[in-house]
């Protein structure tokens, strides 16, 4: 659904490679990346590049999987057969994104089980946005519109990211996200044009999801020390603040079009910049959610761990059966 740098940068220094890399290979690598070549799994790459990518792609994959929970919360209560089918298909897409992203990360020398273990133990992060609750049906609209809208802003540039498997996964993911964003906005449009109760739901959803959506782009550029290296390596193609501004500029008129109020009194069109000025983001809240203090952080992780632990016997059975078949095939 989305990715950005989620480490609590106030606490940690930027990643430093543990051992110096061979300068000749490093220079050749940097030159390829600068020339917009794709780096492929078998190519040489600096350790820090590999680690940054594993972290970023696995965070992205985890976000897709944890992101199934807040929306999954409404599949069984969707208000019509069409809405139910569309939401189920959408959440299934998110699961599919998780699957290709785990596969892309595996090409860098990690395994899905290792990544899942890192998520469950709290070492790996996922997008802060999914630690907020989905209270009403309108929250499903807001997630599609704002959260998937933000994801598209983040991910479109990643279709040209330097690591080939990640860039290719992103091409497919972006197509699906754009459908998700439209279905979310369409839900909001319907509610905003509906009864007073429906309009209240829609406005409440925008009020609650607006600021967390802006936080999805990560800390401001002056507090994002890993960004410079990630930009040079073309793991990232635009800065957090640039993408955040682009998102605001696109989204505000969409809110106006359906007569919903963006909950920011400081929001104002700036003729000179050709962009909206906007209010202060509560970064204390962002860092608290990154630390696992989000409203539903414990529930989300418990749900994932429970599904994983309760499914252990199924995975063991599948492996035991595959082993038996191999033994039988060998005996024949």
């Amino acid at each position: 659904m989305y990715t950005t740098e989620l480490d609590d940068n106030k606490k940690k220094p930027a990643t430093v490679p543990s051992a110096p890399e061979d300068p000749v290979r490093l220079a050749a690598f940097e030159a390829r990346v600068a020339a917009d070549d794709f780096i492929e799994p078998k190519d040489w790459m600096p350790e820090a590049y590999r680690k940054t990518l594993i972290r970023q792609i696995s965070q992205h994959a985890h976000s897709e999987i944890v992101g199934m929970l807040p929306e999954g919360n409404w599949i069984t209560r969707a208000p019509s057969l069409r809405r139910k089918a569309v939401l189920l298909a959408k959440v299934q897409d998110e699961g599919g994104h998780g699957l290709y992203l785990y596969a892309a990360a595996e090409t860098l020398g990690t395994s899905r089980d290792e990544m899942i273990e890192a998520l469950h133990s709290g070492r790996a992060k996922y997008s802060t946005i999914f630690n907020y609750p989905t209270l009403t049906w309108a929250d499903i609209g807001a997630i599609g519109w704002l959260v998937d809208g933000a994801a598209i802003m983040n991910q479109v540039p990643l279709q040209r990211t330097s690591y080939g498997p990640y860039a290719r996964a992103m091409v497919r993911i972006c197509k699906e996200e754009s459908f998700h964003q439209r279905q979310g906005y369409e839900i909001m449009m319907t509610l905003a044009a509906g009864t007073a109760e429906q309009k209240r739901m829609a406005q409440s959803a925008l009020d609650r999801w607006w600021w967390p959506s802006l936080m999805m782009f990560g800390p401001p550029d002056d507090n994002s020390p890993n960004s410079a290296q990630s930009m040079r390596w073309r793991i990232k193609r635009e800065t957090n603040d640039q993408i955040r501004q682009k998102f605001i500029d696109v989204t505000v008129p969409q809110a106006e079009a359906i007569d919903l109020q963006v909950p920011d009194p400081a929001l104002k069109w700036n003729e000179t910049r050709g962009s909206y000025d906007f209010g202060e983001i509560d970064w204390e809240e962002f860092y608290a959610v990154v630390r696992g203090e989000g409203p539903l952080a414990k529930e989300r992780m418990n749900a994932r761990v429970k599904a994983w632990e309760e499914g252990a016997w199924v995975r063991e059975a599948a492996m035991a059966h595959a082993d038996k078949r191999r033994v039988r095939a060998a005996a024949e």
Partner: protein
Amino acid sequence: MSDKALFEYACRLGDDSLILGQRLSEWCGHAPMLEIDLSLANIGLDLIGQATHFLKLAGDVEGKGRDADALAFRRDVLDFRNCLLVEQPNGDFAQTIARQFLFSNWQELLFRDLTRSRNETIAAIAAKAVKEVAYHTRFADEWMVRLGDGTDESRGRIAAGLDWMWRFVDELFEVDAAIAPLIAAGIGADVRALRTEWDARVAKTLADATLELPKPRRATLGGRAGHHSEHLGHLLSEMQFLQRAYPGATW
């Protein structure tokens, strides 16, 4: 042929798919592994699609202005016509698979028959759905074998799941007075005639799974007449919440 009989029949077909689709969607985000999560969601989606078509047909035949959503979200337990099997709770993954295995094998044969229905709408829905259900059957059959011939734990669980679901099998093959005329008119499928082939399919998969066929027992019936288990009311109260809480709203 009375429209009442056709309405009844379309509701039975639609409700089977709807209720099982709803049950499967409960798994979304919580399955034992990502691949299974995707498969269950996919099967649920197919079923909700089938339900939408059959319930639309029911509403059209009834002619009282109820569309598929009105039928899905604004009927109460006594008016639901699904079989008892599909409303059984998911339980553990083994129970879900046992339910799917018994049902999909039946639904595939049923839809294969219905592709020849003299009602063109039913035939068209069945023609599309039979391909989907062939996949559902394969998925369920394969998991029956993995779980039966996997570990001691999985074997115990799938045997228990099958045992739980088995008492609802006879209902699938029941023909009552409400649909007998539709069968005579070549519109409905005579499910009694499908039993031998279903038995053979089930026996084959259970043999592959090294599982025993459950012992015959007294059938639990009633779903087709609206006499359901206690589970259905809870399923509906969740599924129908928004339509009930905000009557008349458009979503």
